[in-house]
């Protein structure tokens, strides 16, 4: 097991280098550059001169590979550089934005799994019956609805657009909350979270519940379930006591693929609800061609993707000794 972990960890290094190299060069070779020129677009000689000095100062005039090596050597020391626009360290920007995204994605994740696991189990037990078909159909339709469309519709209908003004649609906090107590502030936060969390939850219901459904179906077909039924246990006991636990194992690995999303958040939902989380941070960095911020966020999310895949594999190996054996042999 330890051998497996070690080898997999080593394998992450080339992947990480590949990802960052690709991203770095794609970003920098794409035509377009950060500039200090205003919207009027007039480049006076003075502006040109100071722009040159600024590029020199920021190291943007060095050859690209040197810049990459420079970036990489600082990244491994957790120094992500600082924003080209407001000079603040990228790390500070991320630390500021991260909690807002985490609140959204962790809640969405909890709702997704607590809803889709029972739904998936129900569908598996009632396979092919009407309730299974209805659940699958509804979730499939939800899955196909673009989240920006749903978010905008919710704003129109419930967020004071054209009909009801039930939920706030800007940010995560009301402006008059300065002196309010903890309880009032929490209620206010929950109020702000309802719509964005819904928008993050509904699209993944289909995938997760389908996964649970097929996992449950696999378990139900096993011999030991037939034995349990044969010895006269009620269907309820068979499912809850014998089948449930084993059917939950595969979904653990699905969780690991959600890891990058938990930190990266959703650009679209954060943009519509004006939440200054990781998605918005990236969005604004792209708008301003703020390379260090883009590189910082992308690399972090890439690392989490790799860690997620690794954790998923390890979870599988941990759960299923057969896989562990094969891997160590091969």
């Amino acid at each position, binding site marked *: 097991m330890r051998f497996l972990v070690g080898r997999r960890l080593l394998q992450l290094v080339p992947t990480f280098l590949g990802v960052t190299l690709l991203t770095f060069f794609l970003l920098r070779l794409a035509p377009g550059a950060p500039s200090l020129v205003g919207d009027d677009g007039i480049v006076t000689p003075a502006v040109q001169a100071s722009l040159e000095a600024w590029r020199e100062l920021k190291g943007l005039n060095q050859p690209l590979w040197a810049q990459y090596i420079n970036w990489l050597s600082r990244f491994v020391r957790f120094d992500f550089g600082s924003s080209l626009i407001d000079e603040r360290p990228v790390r500070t920007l991320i630390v500021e934005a991260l909690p807002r995204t985490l609140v959204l994605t962790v809640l969405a994740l909890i709702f997704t799994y607590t809803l889709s696991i029972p739904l998936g189990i129900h569908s598996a037990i009632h396979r092919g019956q009407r309730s299974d078909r209805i659940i699958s159909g509804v979730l*499939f339709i939800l899955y196909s609805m673009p989240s920006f*469309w749903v978010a905008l519709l919710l704003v129109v209908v419930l967020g004071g657009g054209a009909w009801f003004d039930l939920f706030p649609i800007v940010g995560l906090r009301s402006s008059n909350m300065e002196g309010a107590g903890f309880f009032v502030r929490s209620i206010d936060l929950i109020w702000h979270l309802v719509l964005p969390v819904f928008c993050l939850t509904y699209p993944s219901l289909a995938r997760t519940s389908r996964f649970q459904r097929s996992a449950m179906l696999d378990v139900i077909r096993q011999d030991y379930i037939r034995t349990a039924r044969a010895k006269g246990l009620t269907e309820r006991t068979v499912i809850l006591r014998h089948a449930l636990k084993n059917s939950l194992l595969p979904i653990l690995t699905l969780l690991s693929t959600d890891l990058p999303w938990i930190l990266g958040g959703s650009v679209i939902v954060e943009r519509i609800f004006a939440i200054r989380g990781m998605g918005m941070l990236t969005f604004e960095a792209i708008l301003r061609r703020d390379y260090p911020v883009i590189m910082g966020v992308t690399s972090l999310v890439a690392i989490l993707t790799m860690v997620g895949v690794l954790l998923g594999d390890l979870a599988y190996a941990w759960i299923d000794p057969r896989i562990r054996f094969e891997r160590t042999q091969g």
Partner: protein
Amino acid sequence: MKGKRDTWSAMKSRRGARWGVAVLATVCGVALLSDFIASDKPILARIDGKLYVLPNLFTPVGLRPYTINTLIERMGKTDWLIAPLVSWGANEQDKGTAPLAPPSSRHWLGTDTARRDVLARMVHGSRVSLLVGLASVSIFITIGTLLGLLAGFFGGWVDVIVSRTVETVMTIPVFFLILAVMGIIESAGIGTMMVVIGLVYWTRVARLVRVETLKLRQLGFIEAATALGYSNRRILLVHILPNALGPILVAATFGVAASIMMEASLSFLGFGTPDATASWGGLLRGAMGNFHAWWLILFPGLAVFATVTSCNVLGEAMRDSFDPHLRHEVE
């Protein structure tokens, strides 16, 4: 392997699949005929004794300064014109209407922030969606199939390189990357979008084709082909590729849905189509901050939803009919 006819009849028997085909056919029809459905020039007209044929397509010099509405105003007794169903151009600004006007008899689905007809823009926007959908899918299916075939067939270092590259590209936060490239390239437009989506989405296809090739390579008929002395190229293209076509087709259908969704998201965020090019996502962008304009949100979003759902339904139906074992299982 099942026969083609079986596959088709299995697919057609699903009600969802029929609906999917119907919706997609409609969208394709609208995209092809958009100049005949919505245009600010007539289809056929006689103005000042002169006959104009298809000015909506060719825009003759004499009619250039006019729109259907200004033409009607200056028409003489013997003049006549046949207008398209929606007599507004995708970029025509209607000075007689307020910006963000709700649906009315003048503008059936209302107007956007620049007083343009929403329906006309939706009709022309279908072109962008389909074009980006089909073009990026062709790109990534080609790349993915090629690399998958090579990796699966030759194995060894070719396989190592391809598999490692797939792993690397799969690790990149795709949405951030596409967004960043679209945002940084100054003159990014529909073409850039197709290429970028195409270059990023090929990994799944490559994996799929690789596995399929590995499976096929071990079957007797490939061994026979090798024994007959066929060239590798012939074996790959004539014997392996056709047998792997089913899964590729399924992936392509889902891919169209994903690309259309991506295009709409990019355009919605302002990184996709420029303002002059009508697109569904672009229309939705106009609703940002104008949340009372429900018509600007409901209708274009509905178009995206219907198209994407149809592709997904079709993909599911195809997957089920190609391989009954896969029925209702996660990819």
